[in-house]
């Protein structure tokens, strides 16, 4: 197990390097630069001077190697826009994203798995159809649209909930205030995320219920509850966990939209603003964090699955 984990970990290093090179190229080959949009009042020689100051006139490979060297020493550089250290920026914003997305991920996972199990056990009956139809619906609603509608109804029209932000600004932190601010975005995000879990869970559980060992357990006359909980559920969770590993990064990078709608001060928003202003080092730092999340998520999912189902380890070695 440890050897497998170490192998996988070692394999992810070149992966991260390749990703960082691709991202770097993508950012720097794009037309325009961080000082192009200062406005027409700025002389070209000022822009040149600033570019030189920031080391942006070096050839691209040199810039990349400098960035890599700094990053390996634990220094992500400073923002071209705000002059802040990039790691400080990310550290300041990451908790907000983790709170919002973590909460909705956990809630949707719990609800999705439960709904998936219920649907699978009542296959073809009304419950199954309702769950199926609702998940298809929830999957096809754009999250920003649902967010704006939810704000318009629950915050602006009914006035039950705050319209956005992570707390009432200027007020001291209080759990009640904080939870009220968290509620609406969490509900919206949970709603749109439930289907992916419930559908996977349902399919996978149906698959497992047809397997030999479950049939054998039935033949032995074990109680239905015991069969499901002990024999069917653990292997049926494997695809859900695989999907979780794949989904964590998708959810995190998709945060740009949710955070925009709900004025949530997280990293998605940080990236979006950085992209608008060519803040190369900020973007590289965030891309790196996101890539680590992706690679780490996959790794964690693989390792968990290897535990749940030892056959996977040998497949992985091929």
């Amino acid at each position, binding site marked *: 197990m440890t050897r497998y984990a170490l192998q996988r970990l070692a394999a992810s290093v070149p992966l991260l390097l390749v990703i960082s090179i691709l991202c770097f190229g993508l950012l720097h080959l794009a037309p325009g630069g961080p000082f192009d949009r200062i406005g027409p009042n700025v002389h070209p020689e000022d822009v040149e001077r600033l570019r030189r100051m920031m080391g942006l006139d070096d050839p691209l490979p040199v810039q990349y190697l400098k960035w890599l060297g700094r990053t390996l020493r634990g220094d992500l550089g400073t923002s071209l826009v705000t002059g802040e250290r990039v790691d400080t920026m990310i550290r300041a914003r990451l908790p907000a994203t983790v709170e919002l997305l973590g909460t909705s991920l956990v809630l949707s996972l719990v609800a999705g798995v439960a709904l998936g199990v219920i649907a699978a056990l009542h296959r073809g009956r009304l419950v199954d159809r309702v769950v199926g139809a609702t998940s298809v619906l929830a999957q096809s609603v754009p999250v920003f649209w649902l967010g704006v509608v939810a704000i318009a109804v629950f915050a602006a029209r009914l006035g039950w909930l705050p319209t956005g932000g992570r707390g009432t600004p200027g007020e001291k932190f209080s759990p009640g205030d904080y939870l009220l601010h968290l509620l609406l975005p969490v509900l919206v995000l949970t709603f749109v995320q439930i289907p992916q879990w419930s559908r996977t869970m349902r399919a996978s559980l149906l698959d497992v219920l047809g397997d030999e060992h479950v049939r054998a357990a039935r033949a032995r006359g074990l109680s239905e509850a015991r069969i499901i909980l002990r024999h069917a559920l653990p292997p049926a969770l494997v695809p859900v966990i695989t999907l979780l590993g794949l989904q964590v990064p998708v959810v995190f990078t998709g945060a740009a939209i949710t955070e925009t709608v709900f004025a949530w001060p997280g990293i998605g928003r940080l990236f979006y603003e950085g992209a608008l202003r060519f803040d190369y080092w900020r973007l590289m730092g965030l891309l790196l964090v996101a*890539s680590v999340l992706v690679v780490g998520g996959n790794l964690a999912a693989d390792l968990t699955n290897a535990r749940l189902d030892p056959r996977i380890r040998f497949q992985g070695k091929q």
Partner: protein
Amino acid sequence: MMPAVESRPPHVAGRRAPAGLVWGLGLLGVLVAISVFAPLFAGAGRDAVHLEIRRLGPSWQHWFGTDDLGRDTLLRVLLGGRVSLAVALLSTLVSLLIGTSLGLVAGYRGGRVDALVSHSTDVVLSMPMFFVLLVLGSYWGAGFATLCLVIGLTNWMPVARLVRAATQSLRDRAFVEAGRALGYTTRRILLRHVLPNAAAPILVAAALAASQAILIEAALGFLGMGLRPPTASWGVMLRDAQEHVFDAPWVALFPGGMLCLTTLALQAVADGIRDRLDPRLRHA
């Protein structure tokens, strides 16, 4: 957004088409038809600006109301549908082309080729895609062709995985081995024998990729990085409508609704085909 699907050989499929497939295809057909024929309904100059009837609510003359230049929202939604559906179609073709060729080769050849393709797929899958799309959208500009290409290039990985799995399962089947015994070229075997039998999983992948493409286009449009007016896709219309959540909510309601309907239909089609492939998972 796509759960891994285990493909099975097509002969297992049931006889009757699942209800979801039927209504999904029907709905999709209607949506495509009205979008394709939208200019016919339009007649000459109905997309014209009429500043005197700006932001009217829904009425008999204008079922979906009018927008902030007095243009008929229904017509704009239909014309926008042409753009959104065209983006979905073209970007899906790009994804299919890349994903299918890589998947076929990797699944059939196995060994080092497979390892290379699988690793590349992993690398691309490990890129934070939405961030990448944001960068592409804001810097490279999003003309129609660029947008299709960008979405297609960031959306082929699930296709490749599905096709690879399907090919692997077909590789050692009798009819493929027969082809090899007869000395057919690999290309011929792949195109004539493997591809047709992998058609169903490819269709599933295509439908899912298309619904994904529509949502990506809308999200980019919403963040102001999608297509540029006067090309009005649903995503761009939604963004423009944001300005009028208070005084003309219908301008936002209808493109949003059409968008949901389309992805709904595509999902239903994908589910339907999947159910046919694997009747055990069928809902009804």
